[in-house]
């Protein structure tokens, strides 16, 4: 159980997939316009990541090397399609807002990276711990970006107005440049705080 926590915590900060490893960026930037989208995307990624890590870890001894990547990607795509279908059925507005980025979870490098780097080498319990940690770490970052973008871009939080009527949204925050700017600032802050902590 101790090791379970160890692997779980690893993904939160030390090896945070977005800020430290620089993977899975596409969906982080594209979806983080509103907080509810971020949470939805986070949940979807956690689900796909955990399920595929578990399955891949269970199969790890039976997979021939030549078809390793096709097999992993088929497993991942199955869970992604399930998420896609379920979201369309039960959460249609959310599914519409995320558009093509739900299918693109398949190629979210986080999932393939963790499948290859971790799940295909470790027993299922640890694979799940690692997947959960990575997934939660991803969700934390994407939500942190989403809060700022929604607040300044629309002047709202979870679609509730925060600022007085006269507030005009900052367009740049909603458009791509704002996303790039914010993630740059976040990484710089993380670097800075890590360096301070070391001292």
């Amino acid at each position: 159980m101790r090791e379970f926590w160890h692997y779980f915590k690893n993904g939160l900060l030390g090896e945070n997939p977005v800020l430290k490893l620089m993977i899975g960026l596409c969906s982080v930037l594209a979806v983080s316009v509103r907080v509810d989208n971020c949470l939805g995307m986070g949940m979807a990624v956690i689900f796909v990541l955990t399920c595929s890590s578990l399955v891949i870890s269970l199969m790890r001894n039976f997979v021939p090397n030549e078809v390793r990547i096709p097999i992993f990607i088929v497993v991942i795509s199955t869970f992604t399609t399930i998420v896609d279908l379920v979201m369309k059925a039960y959460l249609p507005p959310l599914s519409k807002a995320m558009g093509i980025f739900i299918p693109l979870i398949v190629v979210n490098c986080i999932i393939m990276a963790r499948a290859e780097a971790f799940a295909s080498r470790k027993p299922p319990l640890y694979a799940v711990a690692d997947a959960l940690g990575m997934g939660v770490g991803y969700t934390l970052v994407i939500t942190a970006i989403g809060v700022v973008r929604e607040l300044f871009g629309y002047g709202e939080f979870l679609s509730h107005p925060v600022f007085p009527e006269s507030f005009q949204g900052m367009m740049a925050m909603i458009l791509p440049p704002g996303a790039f700017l914010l993630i740059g600032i976040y990484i710089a802050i993380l670097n800075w705080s890590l360096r301070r902590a070391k001292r």
Partner: protein
Amino acid sequence: MNIFLPTILVGTLGLAFGLMLAFFAKKFAVPTNPLVQEIERLLPGANCGACGFPGCSGLAEKIASGEASPNACPVGGPRVWAELSRLLGQESGSWEAKRALLLCQGGEGIAQTVAEYEGVADCKAAHLLPASFKGCRFGCLGLGNCVKVCPFGAIHLDTESHLPVIDWEKCTGCGKCVAECPRNIITLVPKREQVTVACVSLDPGKEVRKLCSRGCIKCQLCVRTCPEGAITFENGRIVISREKCTLCGLCVEKCPTHCIIRVGEKLALLEVKG
């Protein structure tokens, strides 16, 4: 709705692709260095490209050849680093500790100084200027960025020559100075006795002769001298093959400008003689 049709269809697709892949992988197999494969097995294999090399196999090759450090994979993190070091440490024949080496002897009194530099004492700033205050466009500026960046205090500026001196006892081969140097004259080399050309100038011999008394003038005397054929002239620079070199020292003696140097196992102090 028939749910078996898709199963059969996709299954067939899988069968076809699987057959193709397995067949071609066997038929067109290219023998690769077993060490590279070993390293690649340890790497995450996500092929994300975050390391700056083309995929995990690309990085594996570079690690095996010593051009990349085993901690270059940001995805694998410290764990992969530890595993790789263990692997490489065991196979000591193909893996050696690296040390930083300055490939320039153009210190004070040896290389020409054509102008007084009074700007910020920073190599990068000085390098950005269109003209160099040192005559040579390739040589060390001696402003000490590498000294500042070294986390181990292994580099200091020599008081006479104003060139950085790297203490191989303290150097860990982390490569920070290599990345810092705007002129790319610091490189990582295996930690052992070796003979190397301490000049990276691409200028023609005549130019070099004017600018520096320890620069490579491309006379290629060493190429002709070497009994092992270990020295070649490639793309405007002299290259000494570490594999072929027997450390006989003939080239060091013959070099008219003394720009081929012998580096000891313990230290990379360039003996700057008058």
